[in-house]
């Protein structure tokens, strides 16, 4: 079966070299028709609670998610096949994402759904075990996988494929790529402050934009949560009308029936807000995704800065070493150097010493030259591929958010129509009083 073939390929691809990236890309990038998603259907079908033993004999309860895959209709010729399935927990998704971030530093890697519920309005529980939260997380995880599997570059990754198709041993395979070491050093470097002399202007603008996007989306989410809270209150208080109309109808003769039925409509009105707001949560999730996406975008810009900085540093170093060599060779001291000082104070060095130093410098210069060439190429890579992916991301963002906003408008329209319906019904009851 084609699947087995691919599986074998994935397994033999387990790399042991330091350059994880090349070994894990099955085919080269930018061909969307070759993305994994075209060949394979992926769903995160279910969520289940498990209890297990953590270290130190402690019980923990966690949720696992069922990933189902099957060859797509295009591959299978329309035959329906039972899906393959495996369980993964949230932390494994996190591991996958961390791997992708390190392996593809110039790609805006899609975010995971939030670990803990934030931007909640009062009725929603912030409990990770809450079924509504788990369900929304399931959707978010599926979304993540779909995005990665449809990305022109990332979808070809072997680790990704392994994650989707083989439950056991995946963690070991990931760690074997050695990405962790790279991750740690990257994080340290990115967290440091450094000044870049000539960053790419476009990347700087993008970074600035990502900051603004983060800020504005979190503002939006907070304001929306507060609005939801208030709207909930408005609807629920109308339920009190239901009760009082019912009580009042008991002492009335002709008015009784009209009041009673109107009361039922008021109850229905009050109850309707639960579904309305639950649906709005999905909209909030879409905005949230781009809040987190902004962070991923920023990370790419920062990586550019880092590589540019490293290039600049390497260049400076090379230049200074060349200068030193020149001084050593010609004896002319152009710039102040400690060596020059000490030489003046303590006397010249011997010819052998000078020769030794010159030789060392030459070696360093050759090395430095290589480093500069490497860094330059790396930088150029990041700039071109990174820019390309950022453009792709931008178009995707505009598409997705536009659709989210349209859906939001439709949600509001639906809410208005329901409102008109309920009050028209109530009015009819009133008119029969």
């Amino acid at each position: 079966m084609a699947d087995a073939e691919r599986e074998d390929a994935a397994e033999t691809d387990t790399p042991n070299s330091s350059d994880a990236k090349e070994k894990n890309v099955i085919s080269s990038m930018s061909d969307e028709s070759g993305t994994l998603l075209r060949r394979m259907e992926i769903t995160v079908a279910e969520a289940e609670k498990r209890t297990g033993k953590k270290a130190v004999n402690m019980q923990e309860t966690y949720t696992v998610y069922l990933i189902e895959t099957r060859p797509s209709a295009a591959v299978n010729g329309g035959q329906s096949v039972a899906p393959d399935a495996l369980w993964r927990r949230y932390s494994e998704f996190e591991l996958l994402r961390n791997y992708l971030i390190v392996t593809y530093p110039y790609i805006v890697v899609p975010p995971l759904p939030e670990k803990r519920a934030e931007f909640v309005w009062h009725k929603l529980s912030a409990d990770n075990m809450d079924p509504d939260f788990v369900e929304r997380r399931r959707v978010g995880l599926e979304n993540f996988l779909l995005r990665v599997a449809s990305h022109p570059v990332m979808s070809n990754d072997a680790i990704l494929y392994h994650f989707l198709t083989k439950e056991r041993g995946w963690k070991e395979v990931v760690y074997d790529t050695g990405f962790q070491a790279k991750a740690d050093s990257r994080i340290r470097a990115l967290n440091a402050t450094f000044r870049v002399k000539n960053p790419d202007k476009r990347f700087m603008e993008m970074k600035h934009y990502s900051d603004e996007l983060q800020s504005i989306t979190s503002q939006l989410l907070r304001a929306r949560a507060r609005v939801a809270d208030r709207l909930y209150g408005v609807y629920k208080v109308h339920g009190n009308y239901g009760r009082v109309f019912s009580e009042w109808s008991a002492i009335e003769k002709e008015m009784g029936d009209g009041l009673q039925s109107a009361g039922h409509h008021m109850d229905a009105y009050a109850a309707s807000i639960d579904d309305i707001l639950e649906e709005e949560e999905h909209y909030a999730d879409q905005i949230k995704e781009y809040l987190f996406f902004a962070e991923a975008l920023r990370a790419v810009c920062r990586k550019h800065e880092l590589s540019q900085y490293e290039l600049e540093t390497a260049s400076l170093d090379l230049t200074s070493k060349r200068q030193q060599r020149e001084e050593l060779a010609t004896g002319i001291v152009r710039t102040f150097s400690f060596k020059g000082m000490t030489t003046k104070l303590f006397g010249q060095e011997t010819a052998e010493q000078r020769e030794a130093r010159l030789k060392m410098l030459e070696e360093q210069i050759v090395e430095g030259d290589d480093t500069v060439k490497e860094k330059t190429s790396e930088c150029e890579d990041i700039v071109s591929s990174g820019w390309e992916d950022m453009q792709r991301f931008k178009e995707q963002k505009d598409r997705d958010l536009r659709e989210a906003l349209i859906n939001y408008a439709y949600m509001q329209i639906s809410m208005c129509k329901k409102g008109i319906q309920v009050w028209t019904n109530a009015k009819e009851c009133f008119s029969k009083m």
Partner: protein
Amino acid sequence: MSASTPKTLSSSGQKPIQEICHPLSAAEEAVVRTPSPDVANNTASIEDKDLSLPNGTPVDTSSPASSSSLLNRLQLDDDLDGETRDLFVTVDDPKKHVSTMETYITYRVSTKTSRVEFDLPEYSVRRRYQDFDWLRIKLEETQPTHLIPPLPEKFVVKGVVDRFSEEFVETRRRALDKFLKRVADHPVLSFNEHLNAFLSSKDLNKRAGLALLTKVGEGVKLVTGGYKLRLRPLEFAAMGEYLDTFTGKLGTIDRIAQRIIKEQTEYLAELREYGPVYGSWAGVEAGNRDNNAAVGVEEDRNHSSSGHHSNGNGLQAPLEGVAGGVASVAAAMEELTEDMSQDFLPVLREYVLYIDSMKNVLKKRDQVQAEYEAKLEAAALRREERTTVPSDVEKCQDRVECFNADLKADWERWQNNKRQDFRQLLTNMADSNITYYQKCLAAWESIIPLLQERPADSFGRGQDKVI
């Protein structure tokens, strides 16, 4: 004979009070001459009937609004047994008067009538709240067995309400108009001398009114206090119980309405923070686009791998659209809360006053009955001395019976009015909410084409992306 006989009715066509068949006693049936639905027993929907106005004009029942207003017109006709009303009063045109002593508001009181009790067919006078108050007191004094409609409260207690603000004056005007209309509609009260004076005198000299009172005489000076009723008859006890329960329900409804207004106001405040964020976001997107242009980025306008045309910055328009939508919702919500504050709550509160008046009338009735029973007892003790019932006891008995009759009649009338008033009130509440949602619906529907708009598209083609 009735204890408080109105002036002898001349041959204007009006029947003596005992003969007028109120739509009261058998409250269910309104004697109706016009081909209109029997409102009291109406269970079928309005659309089913072939409605026409009393004068035969067919009525358009297609819109709910016209159906309910038609209903109101028919109800008023019902109250007068299909007889044409001959006394129309209106309170309007508030004006501020500033004098050295005080500042106050007067209202124009317009009257149109064909009654012979009035010298002229039309009147237009200006009255202030004090004058209405005077009228009410006089009515209570001269028609003690009848339920006098309430006035809006004299003093404004709550907060620092501006007595001269448009909303306050308008609310008051409506209540005064209602008061006068109720009095004018009442088969007995509308013939009261003081009402006549109130409506017709250029200068409402209140002392002259007093003289008028003593001339007419027959004002029953009730002895209040001193007599305690042992047992309220069942039907009046039932009325009292109803009033107590009803007051409770009205209080609850008032609290709920206030709570809703409060929640809506807070919702409104949050909306006002929320909407503009979309606008700011649109600015961020625009800024990004400008920056891209500044650094020489070519906008790939025709990138359409998915067949979707996005303009250079596809988010600005949708974001601004949503900002607009939210702003419209906020505006509509503000109007809704205003409606409820101004129309709903005052009418609700006025009914509480009405109930208090009714309770007082019940108490007065109890007094009269108590007096009668006391005198009867006293007379019984002296029975050996007489054979016939003494005349003052007889008078008391008459009084009790008249009071009971008047009260019962007024009760039925009040119940009917209450039903209409609340039907109107609640229907208006429903209408306000429907209007709110309609406004919001229109606002959101109008931005859908904007959200779906492609840059090259002109209006009217926004429907191609169907969700």
